[in-house]
């Protein structure tokens, strides 16, 4: 069982990395690119007792991980997806 946590900057928070990527794409000749945002995708392998729990329980546990560590909720949003 795997979980994917997608962490992205909140709307309205300036994303310097995204902006730089956008500029670089333009200068490479990819003119038709508008806003670019860069986020993180963290893939976790779930093992042990957790892996055999119900999906809602697992999801709750992963959300807890995201809340506590994986995302900084002052500036970031996250979403959790279970795979497999």
């Amino acid at each position, binding site marked *: 069982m795997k979980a994917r946590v997608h962490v992205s900057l909140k709307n309205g928070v*300036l994303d*310097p990395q995204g902006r730089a990527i956008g500029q670089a794409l333009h200068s490479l000749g990819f003119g038709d690119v508008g806003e670019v945002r860069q986020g993180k995708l963290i893939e976790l392998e779930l093992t042990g007792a957790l892996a055999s729990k119900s999906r809602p329980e697992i999801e709750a546990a992963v959300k807890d991980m995201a809340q506590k*560590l994986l995302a*900084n909720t002052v500036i970031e949003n996250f979403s959790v997806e279970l795979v497999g």
Partner: protein
Amino acid sequence: MKAALITFPGSNRERDMRMALTKASGGKPPVDVWHGDSDLPQGIDLIVLPGGFSYGDYLRCGAMAANSPIMREVKKRADNGTRVLAVCNGFQIACEAGLLPGALMTNAGLQFICKDVNLRVETTQSEFTKKYRKGQTIRVPVAHHDGNYTLDADAVKKLEDEDRIAFRYADPLGNVAAETNLNGSVANIAGIYNARKTVLGLMPHPENATDPMCGGMDGYGLFESIAESLA
């Protein structure tokens, strides 16, 4: 002053900080505390979170250190009024741990910056800066990749209203302008206080400006101020 200096895996400016603290307290070194300890010694009146790359700055700067055992104790002491000085990575940790508002993002130029900058002392109504003059410009180095201080406009206004902005990036004459904004920080902010002004977080390294042979003395006032306040 009885200071505790906290080291996390990946801290790397604890030695620089130790030299500055020792000098300011008349040769008495701070107590070294390891991140895995869950206790701080009794009688500590200043907790220092030094610079570096705790946990490699992986995931987000300061995020993992903010969750280490010692930080629970640091928060408890800070709540009880123990003074905290959080520099560079320490500032990032303090924000992640909720000791200070806001977050530190990647520098607007996306590059690590190591150089001397001019800081305008925004307030001397603090135990950390009372030896400076208000509006004085000091020359202190920065060395960071993620010093872009981010906070929403209302919260910035609140900091301003409450006189909680400690330092701003300026020019040598103390002018604060877009061109003197080193890293994209909102309102050129280089350092801030908590509501009670017992916690100071800043990106620049005053500890690297406490020796005439290496970096000058402009940062020493901060250490003298806090040492005198806590004497």
